[in-house]
């Protein structure tokens, strides 16, 4: 049963600390997305990658957020320094290679981040 995995599932940290969230996309998927979900803003796309290369990170605050794919099986989202307004659920999603994957984004279970 192929699925996207995310760690940690829950993270509570204090303002100013660095936070790293990890995602393992479905094996063979070459497109990876990072989303943030809040009650106020809903689902927001932060960044996405194809074949490990960043294609768009315009939704991400550049001064504190960074996203990388060290290899095809790992995507990371870092926040440094974290702020209370970063509290949200962060989702990773992956899509298959080949034809446009706009209709096949598979979401992970999310990381619930609380910044005190």
């Amino acid at each position: 049963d192929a699925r996207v995995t995310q760690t940690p599932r829950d993270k509570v940290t204090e303002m100013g600390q660095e936070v790293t969230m990890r995602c393992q996309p479905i094996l063979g998927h070459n497109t990876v997305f990072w989303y943030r979900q809040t009650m106020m803003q809903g689902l927001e796309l932060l960044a996405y990658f194809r074949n490990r290369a960043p294609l768009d990170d315009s939704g991400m605050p550049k001064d504190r957020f960074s996203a990388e794919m060290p290899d095809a099986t790992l995507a990371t989202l870092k926040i440094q320094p974290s702020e209370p307004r970063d509290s949200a659920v962060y989702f990773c999603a992956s899509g298959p290679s080949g034809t446009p994957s706009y209709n096949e984004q598979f979401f992970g279970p999310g990381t619930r981040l609380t910044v005190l």
Partner: protein
Amino acid sequence: QQQVKQSPQSLIVQKGGISIINCAYENTAFDYFPWYQQFPGKGPALLIAIRPDVSEKKEGRFTISFNKSAKQFSLHIMDSQPGDSATYFCAAIKRSRSEKLVFGKGTKLTVNP
């Protein structure tokens, strides 16, 4: 600027009733419209999707109706069940090299037994 507007924000329906969620979009370049279903504590999952060259698509109890001229589309859940209780998101995308989905803000559906 919100490109996909979704309503209502929340919806309560009795078991066996019809649930209707509406979305309106602004960008006429959008050419693919999926709906996602999200249960508490889970990530969204693709439920059903439609292209603008058809006016309706049905999969089991779920139907998407699409009105291209009005730039609106809606999700109908027939014979709603308590297990359908979830948050539903409409989305839109322009099929191209970019694969960025634009999501509505979601509708929390509660189906009472």
